[in-house]
């Protein structure tokens, strides 16, 4: 996965690891089944004068060929379920203590972000509002409060492997902790009308200095 896309959050690698685990398990079954399938087609192609065999699949020793793989598939499922639930629990259910909290608001067809500002507390007078630009500091744990003003949107940051729908009327909390500095895409991943395709934003992951500079510059600009 990281060959396609950078892993820029703490849980990106665990999601990729899960994908790899599933890939290996189902890849094995897939290759086995397709291999067997094509071999059977070749092996039992019609030959003149040769009649096919009469097998009902009722006898125990024949049935084994279905029941054993059946049990093995179930076993693989259990591994996948365990892996999946663990990752899910880390990403969506159990939130670590935040260093900072931001609010993300989707609307047709703009992302607006409410940064806590210099005092690092949300919903105070010095909050910094931006549209389509989210500034975060590297190696800090963030909570986001996700809201929507009109229709469904989806706050998706591919490099974080993060995705969450924004629902009007609800506030959904999640977390991330950036690990790589740089500018990356934020996408809207839930169709939200004709402007869905332009609802792009950027996330700017900055080191502590740059971030502090940005905060002071931005709050200076917005202070009346």
């Amino acid at each position, binding site marked *: 996965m990281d060959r396609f896309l950078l892993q820029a959050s703490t849980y990106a690698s665990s999601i990729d690891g899960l994908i790899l685990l599933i890939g290996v398990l189902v890849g094995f079954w897939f290759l086995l089944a397709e291999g067997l399938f094509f071999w059977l087609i070749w092996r039992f192609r019609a030959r003149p004068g040769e009649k096919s065999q009469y097998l009902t699949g009722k006898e125990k020793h024949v049935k084994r060929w279905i029941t054993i793989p059946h049990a093995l598939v179930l076993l693989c499922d259990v591994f996948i379920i365990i892996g999946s639930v663990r990752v899910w629990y880390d990403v*969506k*259910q159990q*939130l670590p203590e935040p260093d900072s909290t931001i609010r993300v*608001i989707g*609307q*047709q*067809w*703009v992302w*607006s972000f*409410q940064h806590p500002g210099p005092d690092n507390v949300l*919903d105070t007078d010095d909050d910094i*509002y*931006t*549209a*389509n630009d989210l500034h975060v500091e590297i190696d800090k744990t963030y909570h986001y409060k996700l*809201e929507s*003003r*009109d229709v469904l949107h989806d706050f998706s940051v591919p490099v974080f492997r993060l995705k969450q729908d924004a629902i*009007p*009327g*609800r*506030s*959904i*909390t*999640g977390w991330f902790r950036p690990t790589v500095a740089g500018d990356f895409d934020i996408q809207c991943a839930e169709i939200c*009308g*004709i*402007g869905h*395709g*332009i*609802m*792009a934003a950027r996330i700017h992951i900055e080191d502590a200095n740059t971030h502090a500079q940005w905060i002071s510059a931005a709050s200076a600009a*917005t202070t009346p």
Partner: protein
Amino acid sequence: MSENKDIEQHPGDGHEGGHHHINYLGIYLALVVLFLISVAGPEVGELTGLRWITLVTAFGIAIVKANLVIQNFMHLKWEKRLMKWMLATSLILMFLMVAGISPDVMNHEGNNWENIAAKAAVERGVEAEVEEAEPVEVVAVGFSAEGAYRSICATCHGAEGMGDGPAGAALVPPPANFTDPAFWADRDRDRIVAVLENGAASVGGSSLMAAYGGLYTDDQISELADYVMAFAPGE
């Protein structure tokens, strides 16, 4: 073909056991009595102050009544087991569906989420809504025309109103350039307000310019319109 030819002629023979004698009148009277109890239930509940009595008389009796009708009037009692299973399946599915949905719809908060709007609705109460019928606005605090323009309009129309916002480049038709005299040739303030309020499609323009009347109050729209008008090149 002779098979089963009789079924159409002799209704009721399909039942296992053929004709059955039910005291329909008795069942009807029982239904009426149960019905009277269920109507009286709330009164009793009010007198005694026990709300659960109402619930029991209302829904408990409804279940008993429905059962009486289904078993006797619809003859499910004598129907093949297959049919009973089938109806039971559809009922059970409904219960499971409600069980699957209720954590999200019935509750107003849960693991890392809360339904602000629903909580507000509960808080507000129903009477207020009937009288005022005013939709609640989920507007961000601290409105300023400049801030609104920067955060929303500028994405397409550009910070300087030149129609060169980053998201606007792909649009067909392109976003309006407010600094272009040609643009203002056939436009006035009323039209700008109308477009902000109801979207450009409402005045025959592109549907890409969405309506923002739901997002801002009339005064705010008016301020925003003034802000946009300011881009117009001087006379």
